[in-house]
């Protein structure tokens, strides 16, 4: 075999280039501390890294959401706790009123109830990060205010609706306690309207509702079909003497043509019909959002969460005391019921807070796992890379040394 000069040079250059290129690669890995710096370094690992990066980003968002949700629900719990203390104070005053030693002037009691009322109203309007804790889905506006002209607390607008955040790939968690759940008297309409009825044919239902003093009224409701998937509701509030207090017709109650679910009332998509008769201290809402239109009708029925708006009940008690009248048994019962209602809602809010805490813990563990996986895919094994670097460096030095010894030599050196 002939070994010409270029043969040695070519072999030397190729080996040198190979060694230097692998040396450069290890050096780059060590300076970036990553073994995959571009997709072509390892396409499969790159796909995994991108996926794991996205996963970590999502986890960070979930953690941010959980922290925010937890802060808000904890703020609500705090307000509910204070409210509960104020209600305890109201209950204490009512108990004192029933004792034998108390007589005649109830002004002190009225002032005390008034103080508690102010506090509860203030707490009902409490904020977290510029949002009203009990404002429902529309929590940018103050939910309750005192209407001096009519001497009552008015609910500004729709204060229902859940606020939800995504706290994992599949779980959306509610993180608010809507004011409607606590303070409003809500008559939830249930059952299905019959889709087979002819236009103009009506379905009737009736329920009991109450004013702020606990007096009972009859609410007659008539749903008349006006078009396919469209109805009108005519309601009549009748007092115990059989007099109509308020009658009204609500039109354009629309349902989805495919699912039969409630769709809207005119522009309103909340499904809430507010019934407000200030003269009779009547203030409640009919919730038709769960009503459906199906060809398998279920009997219409209603559920009332509480008899009256607690603010107006307290106003009524306070005003009665100022007039020297003791609260009625119905009013005391309404206060008791509200107190239990408050406790139930605190418990629900507590369980939301616990769930968020538990999810946060799971997510933290998941974050650790994903970070570990990402590190495995992406990070360089420093010990291995350093040893490889030393080996390659040694090889390079050796190549230089040998080349300096051999390459320049030829027969010419000895002639």
């Amino acid at each position, binding site marked *: 075999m*002939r070994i010409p000069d270029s043969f040695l040079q070519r072999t030397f250059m190729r080996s040198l280039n190979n060694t230097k290129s692998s040396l450069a690669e290890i050096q780059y890995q060590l300076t970036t501390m990553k073994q995959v710096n571009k*997709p072509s370094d390892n396409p499969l690992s790159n796909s995994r890294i991108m996926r794991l990066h996205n996963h970590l980003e999502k986890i960070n968002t979930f953690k941010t959401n959980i922290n925010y949700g937890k802060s808000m629900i904890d703020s609500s719990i705090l307000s509910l706790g204070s409210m509960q203390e104020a209600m305890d104070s109201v209950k204490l005053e009512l108990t004192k009123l029933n004792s034998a030693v108390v007589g005649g002037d109830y002004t002190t009691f009225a002032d005390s109830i008034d103080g508690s009322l102010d506090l509860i109203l203030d707490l009902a309007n409490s904020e977290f*990060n510029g949002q009203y804790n009990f404002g429902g889905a529309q929590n940018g506006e103050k939910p309750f205010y005192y209407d001096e002209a009519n001497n009552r607390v008015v609910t500004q607008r729709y204060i229902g609706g859940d606020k939800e955040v995504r706290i994992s790939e599949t779980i959306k968690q509610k993180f608010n306690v809507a004011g409607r759940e606590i303070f409003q008297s809500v008559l939830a309409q249930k059952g299905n309207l019959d889709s087979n009825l002819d236009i103009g044919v009506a379905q009737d239902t009736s329920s009991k509702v109450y004013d702020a003093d606990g007096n009972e009224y009859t609410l007659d409701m008539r749903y008349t079909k006006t078009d396919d998937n469209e109805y009108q509701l005519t309601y009549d509030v009748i007092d115990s003497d059989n007099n109509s207090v308020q009658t009204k017709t609500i039109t354009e109650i629309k349902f989805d043509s495919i699912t039969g679910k409630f769709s809207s009332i005119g522009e309103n998509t909340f499904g809430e019909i507010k019934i407000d008769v200030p003269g009779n201290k009547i203030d409640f809402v009919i919730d038709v959002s769960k009503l459906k239109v199906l060809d398998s009708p279920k009997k219409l029925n209603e559920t009332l969460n509480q008899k009256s708006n607690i603010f107006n009940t307290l106003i009524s008690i306070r005003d009665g005391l100022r007039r020297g009248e003791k609260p009625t048994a119905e009013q005391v019962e309404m206060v008791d019921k509200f107190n239990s209602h408050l406790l139930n809602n605190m418990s629900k809010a507590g369980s939301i807070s616990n769930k968020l805490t538990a999810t946060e813990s799971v997510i933290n563990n998941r974050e650790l796992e994903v970070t570990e996986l990402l590190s495995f895919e992406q990070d360089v094994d420093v010990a291995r890379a350093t040893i490889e670097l030393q080996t390659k460096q040694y090889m390079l030095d050796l190549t230089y040394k040998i080349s300096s010894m051999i390459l320049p030599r*030829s027969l010419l050196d000895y002639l």
Partner: protein
Amino acid sequence: MSLSNLFSISRSSLFAHQKALAVTSANIANANNPAYTRQVVMFGTATPNHRESFSFGSGVNVDKVLRVRNQVTDAQIRLNNQSYFSAEKQAGTLRQVESLFSEPTELGLSNLMSQFFNSWDELAVDPHSTDLRTNVVQAGQKISEKVSSIHSGITQTKTDVANEAKNVVRQVNTIVEQLHTVNKQIYEASSIKSFNNDLLDKRDILLDELSSLVSINVSIDDKNVANVSIGGIFATDGLHHVEFALDQDGDRISLMTKDGAAKTRLQGGSLKGLTELYNKDLPQQLKDLETITQALMENVNDIHSKGHTLTDPQVTGVNFFTKFDKGVLEINQDILDDPFFVAVSSDGADGNNKIALEIAALRNGKLLDNRTLAENYSDLVSGVANKINLQEQKQDSYGLVLHQLHQQKAEYSGVSTDEEMIHILEYQKSYDAAAKLVRVADELLQTIISLV
């Protein structure tokens, strides 16, 4: 045989070894010239003199100067050149495209899309927040900028590829013309039986160069003239040569004869790599990017337009992205001017976040070919990466074969200074011996003259 024959024989030896030394010197001088093929002097016995029944040698001749070359290795080098340079061009260009994606870093589109969907999830928590709304808009802008940067980068690469292809065609034409000239010179030299080794070297180096640019077929005729065709189309011989041009037909490029009569079918060479990139790889990558961006825009808009803004008065039917055209993804100017045009609420309630949650859920939606956008994008990036790996592997393997072939060629044709030094010693000694013979002949002649 006369005494003067001794002078004649000596002279032939002196001349022959002088020529041999010249060839050896040329070999040594070109030891580091890769285009040079080592030459070997072939000595031949001069025609002997016949006297009576005897035959007397009349000296030595240089029969020919042989160019040591292996045609099979040459053909293999040209063949592998085509594959090597095609792979090298594709790998190099695709590496540029790969860098446009900035993966796997936080600046990559994968991460930016994730941030965009996450920003909706975060906005769902507090739909009133101007900061979170601005965050959504900025996340959208980042996607828009990145898509635009990748799109314009690939488009620019495509333009560069077309320009480079034009340059390659110019080089091809120059080489073909040079080959034609060298072919003619070789033909003329062979017809007067002149040594034309340097011309053959020049021809071979031109063929090697040409094979790195385009796929060629070469046949050498008995006059050592190379008949060359490019991609199946005649290019040159000793009499004619053809000029080529790059044909740009819409979104495709190809190599044609300048008169448009014939289209080549390239199998290799850097021009093959460039046409593959221009006609296939780069348009496909652009198309994939456009499809993903279009799907993102349509799906986000479908949901966003159903929502209510938080402006006064509230508006519905607002698109988040207004259009995607020529790689530019435009965000609604109203949203850019006022983040409260971002629709988060499904029913108009200012705290309702259903739209934000729905858009955030698009992250996991099978929006394209029953796969998520992230998966589709990952396929696009992996496709580029795999193609680079494939071409780099080809480049490595053809590079190794080429290295071995060049070593084989060096074994045959390379100059070894050791070997040449030994030749010099040999020829020097022979030259010395011939000179000595002249002196001996001279002494003999002097002896005869002194007798007279």
